[in-house]
């Protein structure tokens, strides 16, 4: 029972981690809490739902196309709602992001209706029993896919020229631009990658819980943001760790404590962690300079 819950928590955590990565990367570069990120996740899930149920596509191509489409949407949003605000303080883009979030969720709410929709049977569900533990194939796919995506991201960020430019921008945007890096392009790319990862998480969560609804982005978004802060916002391994920790805490907390307090438990732990380690688990300590 405990180990089965652990696997469940790990699966959930892997998805949170993928969403958290988008928050963390965008925050690392432009210092924006992208509140629309949860709705981008919802949109990714929606594309996959549409492709599998209306276009009758198989899940693998639908997964990839959903990631592609969502990253395009991410690019458009960045261009329309955030880029004009690059020089105007920190709260204006935040409000703009909230506007985007309301826009996307209500648009889908109107188009699809508020009810929860299930995915068609896209994965032949098998159960693997390892003694006490019951693992489903979906869980295996999700964890494997998340690990693969995170390794890919790590490769891009650490081993490629573009990744080097991204790290330079997150270190200091102005100096990076003086070194000949096209900062606008890098920011756009960051949004595209973050959106694609959120879409991947959206598709997997949608299939896992067999549910899609227009407001699903809200709580997943808040939790993923919590995960990003928990791990140390701006840090990529931190976002991964934060996501997994949050997923585990949430599942174990609701399994062994009162489940109606589930969300409160995650936030209480978050506040405690912040008080003990204000820059998150793996965040780099920011020194205040005069």
């Amino acid at each position: 029972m405990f180990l089965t819950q652990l696997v469940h928590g790990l699966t959930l955590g892997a998805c949170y981690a993928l969403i958290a990565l988008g928050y963390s990367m965008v925050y690392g570069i432009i210092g924006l809490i992208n509140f629309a990120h949860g709705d981008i996740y919802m949109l990714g899930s929606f594309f996959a739902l549409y492709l599998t149920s209306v276009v009758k596509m198989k899940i693998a191509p639908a997964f990839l196309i959903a990631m592609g489409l969502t990253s395009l949407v991410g690019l458009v949003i960045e261009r329309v709602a955030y880029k004009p605000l690059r020089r105007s303080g920190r709260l204006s883009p935040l409000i703009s992001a909230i506007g985007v979030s309301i826009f996307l969720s209500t648009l889908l709410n109107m188009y699809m209706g508020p009810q929860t929709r299930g995915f068609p049977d896209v994965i032949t569900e098998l159960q693997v029993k390892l003694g006490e533990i019951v693992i489903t194939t979906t869980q295996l796919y999700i964890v494997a896919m998340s690990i693969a995506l995170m390794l890919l991201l790590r490769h891009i960020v650490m081993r490629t020229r573009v990744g080097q430019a991204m790290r330079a921008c997150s270190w200091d945007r102005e100096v990076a631009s003086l070194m000949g890096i096209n900062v606008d392009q890098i920011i756009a790319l960051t949004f595209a990658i973050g959106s694609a990862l959120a879409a991947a998480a959206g598709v997997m969560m949608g299939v896992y819980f067999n549910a899609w609804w227009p407001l699903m982005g809200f709580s997943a978004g808040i939790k993923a943001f919590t995960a990003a802060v928990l791990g140390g916002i701006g840090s990529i391994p931190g976002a991964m760790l934060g996501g997994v920790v949050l997923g585990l805490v949430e599942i174990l907390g609701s399994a062994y404590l009162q489940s109606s307090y589930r969300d409160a438990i995650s936030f209480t732990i978050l506040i405690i962690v912040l008080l003990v380690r204000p820059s998150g688990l793996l965040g780099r300590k920011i020194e205040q300079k005069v």
Partner: protein
Amino acid sequence: MIDAYTIQILVVFGINAIMALGLNLITGVTGQLSLGHAGFMSVGAYTAAIMTLRLHTPYVLNLLAAGVVAGLSGVVLGFPTLRLYGDYLAIATLGFGEIVRVLFLNLEITGGGLGLSAIPSKTNLAVVYACLGITLYVMSKIQKSRVGRALMAIREDEVAAIAMGVNSTSLKVQAFAVGAFFAGISGGLYAHYLTYINPNDFGFMKSIDSLSMVVLGGMGSLPGVLLGAAVLTYAPEKLRFLQNYRMICYGAFLVFMMVFRPNGLLGGTDLRQLVKASFKGLNWGAMAKQGARTREGIGGSKDGIA
């Protein structure tokens, strides 16, 4: 005379404005981003409702208690979390708002998910505007005082403010307490106006609403916050004819407002001049001028929270 619908909009505007003015002290003046302001409103609303339902206390006392209990919760939240800065504070306050909501959904005295109903309807236009007047008076006094200037110094540069002898932690907690007090008052007014409250009325979106009012109007400017509250109370009403498209338009409206007036409606210099001129004679016209001058004197906070 004014019809009931207009009165309702005016009352809701007043309640929103009181709450946004409280948040303005925390976010606009002191520069601490709070995403859990609805949590304080919730505490206030439930305090007032429980007092009147269980203890049958008089209305004025309920309102005061709502403010005081919310203010105390501001202190309780502020002491540990104001050590955090910037976005860590934001997420801690967001967590606070959610914890309050989940707690009230589960406690027995708050009626759980059913909420509290049959709260006596006491709030009317006169009470709301008396409270709004007091709030404006207090806020303008605070902003013009030594404490207010210290708070603005914290917003502009906390390290420099500390170096000049400003006790930043204590002042930030005080700002939090006062901001929470007024959110509590608005919660009390709200409870006695709608006669029914539910923990989900004070969710994250409510916090975002009031933050939008502060930012939209122009952070730190009292007429700006009033204008922001007016626009964001009135716009969704005016957009009702759009039916299902209403919230979509509201979202787009927020984006375009920010893209075209990133520093808020009254944040731009030329418009500020205009407003100064048009508000001359009203007693808060002078205040706007004073506020504007102080901000510019400090270094023209174009960035808001730095």
